[in-house]
C-alpha cells in the first residue's frame, strides 16, 4: 500500500486530485460535488438553463462534451446529444463510437449527422478546397449544423462543452489583437435571435484538467487523443502560455476570464457590429447571413466541387509548412 499524503479538504479522507487554484485537495465524492456546484453557479448566474428547457448538447466524443452532458442529465435537465461525423479519418470513426457508447450505456438520445454522406464533403476536403486552416472549415460546418439541428428539433437551448481553458485561450487571442468585435461577443450565453438558437457554455468555471478528472472518476470513456488537424494551432499555443502563467500563479486563468465577464464585458456591451447587422436569408439553405450564400453553403459548395482529400494529405502538407 502506497501512502497518499494529501487529504480531502472537506472530509479528510485520502485525496484523488489537487487543485492549486482552490489551494485544496479533494476526494472523489467532494471533487464531483465541487464540479456540480461550479456548473450550477454558472447556469444560475448567467441564466443559462431552466428545467423546462429542451436541451441539445453538441457532443464530440471528447471529455468536455461528454462531461457536460453527464452533468446536465445528473442535475435533472432534459438533454439530448448531437454528434457530427466530420470525416477526419480514423479520428472521426473513433470519436463517434465514444459518443454512441456513452449515449447507449445511459439510455440517452443521440442525434447523429454525417457530413460526407449527408452534405457531400468532409473537413479535410473542405480545408483543402477553401485553402483555410482545418479548424476554420470545421468551426463553420459545426456551428451551422448545431444551429440547424437545434432549431429543426425544437430544442430551446444548445449547449457546448467549452471550458475555462477554452474561453481563457480565446480571450487571450482576442486581447492580443485587441479585437473589440470578438471581445464584445465572447459571452457564455448568446440569446436566441432570428435563425439562431440560444447557446450556452455551462463549463466556463471548470478547467480542462477538472473535466478530464470528472470523466475518470465517473467512469466515462472518452477520446483522449488529440484531433490530428488541430495539432499546432494557435489555440493550443495560447493554452500552453496560460498554463505556464497558471503554474506560477494558480487561479490566474479563472481571474483572467471570469473577471473579464464581470468587469470588461459590460463595458463592451453594444460594441458588436455583427450582433446588430441586418440579416437576410441564405439563398440556398435559408440560414441567416449577411451575404447571398451563408458561410456554410459557400464552404460546402467549394468542398463538394473538390475531389475527396484524405486526412493524411492535409496533415503532411501542414507539417511541411
Amino acid at each position, binding site marked *: 500500500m502506497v501512502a497518499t499524503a494529501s487529504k480531502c479538504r472537506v472530509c479528510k479522507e485520502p485525496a484523488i486530485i489537487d487543485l492549486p487554484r482552490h489551494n485544496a485537495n479533494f476526494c472523489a465524492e467532494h471533487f464531483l460535488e465541487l464540479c456540480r456546484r461550479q456548473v450550477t453557479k454558472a447556469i444560475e448566474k448567467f441564466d443559462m438553463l431552466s428545467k423546462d428547457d429542451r436541451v441539445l448538447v453538441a457532443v464530440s466524443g471528447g471529455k468536455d462534451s461528454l462531461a457536460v452532458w453527464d452533468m446536465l442529465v445528473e442535475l435533472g435537465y432534459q438533454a439530448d446529444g448531437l454528434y457530427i461525423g466530420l470525416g477526419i479519418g480514423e479520428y472521426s470513426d473513433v470519436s463517434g463510437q465514444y459518443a454512441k457508447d456513452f449515449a447507449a450505456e445511459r439510455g440517452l438520445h443521440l442525434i447523429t449527422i454525417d457530413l460526407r454522406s449527408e452534405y457531400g464533403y468532409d473537413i479535410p476536403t473542405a480545408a483543402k478546397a477553401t485553402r483555410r486552416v482545418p479548424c476554420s472549415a470545421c468551426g463553420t460546418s459545426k456551428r451551422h449544423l448545431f444551429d440547424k439541428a437545434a432549431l429543426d428539433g425544437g430544442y430551446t437551448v444548445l449547449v457546448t462543452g467549452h471550458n475555462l481553458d477554452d474561453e481563457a485561450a480565446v480571450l487571450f487571442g482576442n486581447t492580443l489583437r485587441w479585437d473589440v468585435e470578438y471581445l464584445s461577443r465572447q459571452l457564455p450565453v448568446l440569446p436566441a435571435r432570428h435563425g439562431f438558437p440560444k447557446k450556452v457554455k455551462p463549463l466556463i468555471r471548470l478547467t480542462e484538467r477538472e473535466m478530464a478528472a470528472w470523466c475518470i*472518476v465517473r467512469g466515462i470513456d472518452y477520446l*483522449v487523443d488529440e484531433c490530428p488537424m488541430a495539432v499546432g494551432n494557435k489555440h*493550443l499555443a495560447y493554452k500552453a502560455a496560460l498554463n505556464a502563467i497558471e503554474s506560477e500563479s494558480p487561479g490566474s486563468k479563472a481571474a483572467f476570464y471570469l473577471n473579464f465577464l464581470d468587469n470588461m464585458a459590460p463595458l463592451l456591451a453594444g460594441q458588436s457590429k455583427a450582433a446588430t447587422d441586418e440579416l437576410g436569408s441564405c439563398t440556398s439553405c435559408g440560414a441567416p447571413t449577411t451575404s447571398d450564400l451563408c458561410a456554410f453553403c459557400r464552404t460546402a459548395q467549394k468542398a463538394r466541387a473538390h475531389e475527396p482529400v484524405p486526412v493524411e494529405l492535409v496533415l503532411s502538407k501542414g507539417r511541411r509548412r
Partner: protein
Amino acid sequence: MKVHLRNPRRELELDGKFSVNSLLAHLELPRESHLVIRNGTLVPGDAALAPDDTVEIRPVISGGC
C-alpha cells in the same frame, strides 16, 4: 515503474523513487495539463509512486476551437 504516455502513445520503464509531481517534472510535463492515474485510480501531486505501479499520464488539453 511502467509509465504510459499519450499523444503520441508510448511506454517508458523508469527506475527510482518518484512522486506524481516529481515524475511530471522529470518528464518535463506541466502539471496543469496532465493527470496521473496509478493502477487505474486518479492520484494527487504528492502521491508516492512504487516500483511495481503502472502509471498513465493523461494529457487533458484539447485543441478544438
